[in-house]
């Protein structure tokens, strides 16, 4: 995949970052607003897609290694299961942080309000874990689809075989 024109690349350089920040916002506010870990993660993966399309695969893979996305994926998944295990003193996945003060432990006032970011206990942690996992997973899918395209278009000379 060749890089697109300088116009596209410049605009991508400026605006792609907003996509990433918006994705992070959706992940972190998962317990307050519509969306959550999966949706936010998908938005952040769009950032990767934009970079990949605008700058072409060669320079993109020069900036980041694809192993980093696998490690995001693994870390997110392990974090999610660990959140479950930490609640095991009561039951698996028990919300042990809610209403305890401290991290994500504030109470939410009754009635209409703007929402308290520091509330909801392990739900927020689980959202962050899922967000991390989806960023890694969807980006890895995009990169592997790109490598598959390159494998086909270059007559099978490079790509899938040397990716192990």
């Amino acid at each position, binding site marked *: 995949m060749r890089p697109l024109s300088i116009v596209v690349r410049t605009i991508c350089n400026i605006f792609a970052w907003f996509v990433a920040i918006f994705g992070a916002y959706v992940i972190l506010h998962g317990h307050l607003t519509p969306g959550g870990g999966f949706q936010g993660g998908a938005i952040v993966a769009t950032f990767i897609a934009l970079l990949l399309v605008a700058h072409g695969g060669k320079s993109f893979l020069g900036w980041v290694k694809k192993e980093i996305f*696998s*490690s995001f*994926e*693994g870390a997110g*998944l*392990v974090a999610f*299961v*660990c959140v*479950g*295990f930490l*609640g*095991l003193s*009561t*039951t*698996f*996945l*028990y*919300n042990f942080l809610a209403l305890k003060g401290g991290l994500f432990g504030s109470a939410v006032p009754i009635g209409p309000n703007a929402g308290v970011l520091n509330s909801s206990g392990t739900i927020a942690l689980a959202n962050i874990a899922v967000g991390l996992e989806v960023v890694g997973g969807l980006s890895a899918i995009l990169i592997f689809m790109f490598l598959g395209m390159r494998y086909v278009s270059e007559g099978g000379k490079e790509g899938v075989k040397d990716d*192990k």
Partner: protein
Amino acid sequence: MSWQVHLPALVVSVPLLGAFISIAMVKPRLRNLWFATILVATTILAFLMWRYVAINGTLVYVMGGERWNLTLPSGMTLPIRIIMEVDAFGAFMALAGSIATLASGLFSVRFLDRVNDGNKFVALFFLLFAGMLGLEVTGDFFNFFVFLEIASVASFGLIAFWRDRPEAIEASFKYAVLSTFVALIFLIGVGILYGVYGTLNMAAIAKNMQVGFLEKLALVLFIVSLAMKSGAVPLHMWEPDAYGQAPAGVSCFLVVVGQASLYGMFRIAFSVYGQAFEGSVLAWVIIVLGLLSMFIGVIMAVIQKEAKRLMAYHCISQTGYMLMGIGLGLLALSSSQAMSEYGFTAMKGGIFHIINNAMYKGLLFLTAGSLFYATGTTNLNKLGGLARKMPYTTFMFAVAAAAIAGLPPFNGFVSKLLIYESSFVVHPFLAVVAMVTSILTLASFVKVFQSGFLGPSRDDLNNVREVPLSMVVGMMVLCVMIISLSMMPNWVLANLIEPAARDLVNQASYIQAVMGSGL
């Protein structure tokens, strides 16, 4: 409250943790150690769960609840949480499945040396393990669907693991399309029940069940999708490809995963519909599925030349025995006289056959895998005279083949005898088909034994050696299980099979465990 009440959550989450951490394992040796540790740990957890249920009765677990058994907080009439419900039947299935998985995992450790992305194999293997155990412990329709999908997606990857072989890709793709299709059919069935009863909990639906048109429609969707997932005959076309092309350890594993779908079918037929479904149509549908699977599976198996494909067809045929045994139990469900006359015996036979099949069919796939490991082929025309070169494999194959053919001292004989006896009472034709199937099974395994292991040794197989120790250990696990099931059939029947059959029949206790008696 002992820690053992958390076992239903642990048997699912420990393999999940194993899967996710194994992605990060850099050194192969460390990864193999991790693989074996988590396998053994999960099997021990499944055993403890079975023991806990045997002592304390049905175990209900509420994910994320304030107490592990608080299913209905005050003021609610329907359970809405993620509830796991393990009765003796579910615990028995989980135990049988984990033992077969342990063996297939130990067997696969050496296979991993031959591939360079073994981490992914381990991760998929544990995901499949978690999916299978999840199917057997869940008490909720939607979670059943989720675990079904986890198990399916993991098995797509595992079936296509030799991805340089076009046949493996084809088998996996075929399975992927069919399996996704029937999973959606299952989901539509779940949606119908949710629309009617406003809940997804199996026990709550069973309590309110009044069978009308929509419930019958949902039942048809469930039976079709789960019959396909377990490989019963009109819907078996993916099975020979998938089992034949997957790595041998995985084929052994897929057998017990298929049985988990079978478990779902029986759970829905007995515990969700059960007494509310009048008439014998459902029972006869299951019995006829069983007869067809039994007979068509075995006549397709007799003509195969490829050992793993032959065994895959036998797998279909053995599924038929379980369907028929438990279908006869369902037929007798509404009358206590029929239940004591033939129904309970048939159920014991069917359930005994589940664990038997997991053990000997698994062992047969593993011996086929070691033939492949040693010689590079499982085509029976290219094998011969291996008995002297691979004595352990030969011995294990002989044990497993005798057990599957139902030769008297072995466990296959016990379960088949129970099914013959009970089906004869209903109609002699059923027993005749079952016996003919058994004879043809014997014939086809005599063929495999003769052409694979006996006869003069072939020149092109001179360098063949016995497989490495870890593979022998994997096979040994199942071989020991077969021999002990054969040596103590009475103990097994009294302690493993009968509690499972009793709990499967007893719909009221399944409902009461979640809903309580007060409501």
